[in-house]
């Protein structure tokens, strides 16, 4: 849905005298003010004056971003277009357009002027929330659930470690363990509570155990990383969760933290240092790839599938990890790895980031298709049997998307589940 703005009207003056010089004639068009000047730049400045959103004013409309913006493929979007909308009358802080960006950073990757949506969006959104402007309802509920129960799903904090009962192996919990560990494994909200997330968590527990890793989890002492909530405008909520998590991290002795999801990787590695936490944190793919020489012999059973891997925005573009996940997949016997066209740095966002995970019904009103559906179609077009993922947001998004695009034959599995399958054989 394009906002209302006026199309530029060509101005040609038969008679034009500018600063005393007569320049009448068809070629004087370039000396007349363009339609842009029928608007004031005030709405651009309104955004750029919000602390953190200054780079919005840098845009010189080259439109390289539009070519890579995932939302533009299914709508009318991207930094250059937002700049144009602001030029021609749109107040971004009040518009639905404020909530469509997933902060995937593909635009930032190509922008010659470093217009940084990953900073602009949270700043503008935070301002909108503080000013009591429109916020999508579903997103508010996710904020409130996170604040009240420590996770955006609204599940009881007390039940955060219930999944370990069905993991099939013992999962040590730090507060019961009473000794230092090598690896603190931060499980995350979706792997702790969502049925498909719990599948991946159990698989991870089994893999770590088989590898003899000395690990433990925080269990119910863990709260959500809230990085996506931060990018959706709730910095206060992020800080609330960070305070708690950092206290828990500092309570125990451990050497390295392994996280299940890219969003927590981003939070703990890139944002927490500002809050006084700076310790080694890696994604599970990076961690397991390091142990590949010991992992490979355990991958006994072939998984005879054509697999395509989706690069999570926050593991790939934001944190530079493209190869470890592929190494892991290629280590599984029987796997034929095929690439989608948009891979690695040019990976196409699943739509879950920046709060998108909790705004599907809202974004559906402003796009022709969900990002996850577009991506699922791309995955299916490679002829793959399985779409492999490495982010807990993705499994449910892609499972919905393969169903709604008529591609149910494409299975969606976390790399952890595929490794586990190869370790234990088909159940």
């Amino acid at each position, binding site marked *: 849905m394009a906002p209302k703005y006026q199309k530029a009207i060509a101005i040609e003056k038969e008679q034009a005298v500018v600063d005393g010089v007569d320049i009448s004639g068809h070629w004087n068009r370039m000396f007349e003010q363009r339609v842009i000047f029928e608007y004031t730049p005030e709405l651009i400045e309104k955004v750029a004056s919000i602390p953190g959103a200054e780079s919005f004013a840098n845009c010189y409309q080259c439109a390289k971003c539009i070519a890579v913006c995932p939302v533009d493929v299914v709508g009318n979007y991207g930094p250059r277009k937002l700049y144009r909308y602001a030029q021609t009358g749109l107040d971004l802080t009040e518009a639905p357009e404020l909530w469509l960006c997933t902060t995937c950073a593909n635009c930032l990757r190509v922008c010659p002027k470093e217009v940084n949506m990953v900073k602009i969006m949270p700043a503008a959104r935070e301002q909108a929330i*503080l000013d*009591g402007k429109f916020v999508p309802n579903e997103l508010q509920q996710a904020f409130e659930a996170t604040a*009240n129960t420590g996770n955006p799903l*609204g599940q*009881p*904090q*007390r039940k955060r470690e219930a999944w370990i009962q069905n993991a099939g192996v013992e999962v040590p919990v730090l507060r019961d363990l009473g000794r230092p560990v090598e690896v603190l494994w931060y499980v995350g909200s979706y792997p702790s509570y969502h049925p498909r997330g719990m599948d991946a968590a159990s698989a991870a527990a089994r893999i770590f155990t088989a590898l003899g890793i000395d690990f433990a989890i925080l269990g119910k002492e863990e709260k959500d990383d809230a990085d996506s909530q931060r990018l959706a405008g*709730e910095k*206060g909520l992020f800080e*609330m969760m960070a305070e708690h998590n950092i206290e828990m991290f500092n309570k125990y002795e451990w050497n390295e933290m392994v996280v299940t999801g890219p969003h927590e990787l981003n939070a703990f590695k890139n944002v927490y240092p500002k809050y006084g936490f700076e310790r080694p944190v890696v994604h599970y793919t990076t961690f397991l790839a390091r142990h590949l020489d010991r992992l490979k012999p355990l991958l006994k059973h072939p998984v005879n599938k054509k697999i395509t891997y989706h690069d999570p925005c926050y593991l790939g573009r934001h944190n530079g990890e493209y190869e470890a996940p592929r190494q892991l997949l290629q280590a599984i016997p029987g796997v034929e790895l095929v690439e989608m066209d948009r891979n690695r740095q040019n990976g196409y966002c699943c739509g879950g980031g920046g709060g998108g995970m909790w705004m599907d019904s809202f974004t559906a009103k402003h796009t022709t298709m969900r990002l996850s559906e577009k991506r699922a179609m791309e995955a299916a077009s490679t002829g793959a049997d399985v779409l492999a993922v490495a982010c807990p947001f993705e499994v449910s998004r892609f499972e919905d998307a393969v169903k709604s695009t008529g591609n149910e034959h494409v299975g969606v599995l976390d790399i952890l589940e595929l490794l586990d399958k190869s370790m234990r054989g088909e159940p």
Partner: protein
Amino acid sequence: MNIVVAIKHIPSIADELPVNGSNIDFDSVDFVLNEFDEQSIEQAVLVKEASGGTVTVVGVDLIGELDNVLHLALAKGADNAVKITADEPGADSHQQAGWLAEAIRGMSPDIVFTGVQASNDLDGQIGPMLAAYLDLPYIGGVSSVEVNGGTATVNKEFAGGVGAKYAVSLPVVVGVQAASKPPRYAPISKVRQIAQTAAIGKVAPSGDGAGAGLALKKMAPPVATGHAEMLTGSSKDVAAKIVELLKSKGLA
């Protein structure tokens, strides 16, 4: 205008309720703000915004965790917050209403808002009791309030979508069912800011603390006299079974 909001901190019913002996196991349960009190806080702030005055939120702190709730109320527009430090998770409505009445009496309220009911009102709601103890009139089930001079005009909801408008001379106790607008969102950063700076008034419970006069013999989940036939399988299976069921009954 002195606007007072009396809130109730109640066990959360989001999850199963653990039982200890003949009552809820209050140590194992989370406490949350009564959802009707969310509405009454909003209604109070709306009245203040329309007609001026100050909003004071007061509640009985049963388990020492009321501060978060009070900070949230302040972030939503309340001006002052007071907690009655009772430290008695099982205090019934009569006790709480008694303590609240003592605390509120000194505030010379023009209007007292409170949620129309709470899910743990075994011995009745605190709103009508507050009115009785403060010797003020009570009207409950209210879904909109406007104040003009010394009169509040309220809309009371009856069943069947029927309502009635009443004019009430202040002071009055109002049991709020729904605010005239859905409760606003308070950004966490604002709540945290308030948590750093706000001073919450503390008072000790006073008055005779007379209880409900009910001997609790048992508290247990209901014995289901019937149960739904559960449809199992994936969401697709469930959907197919439902559609088949509807078709077999000529309903689809």
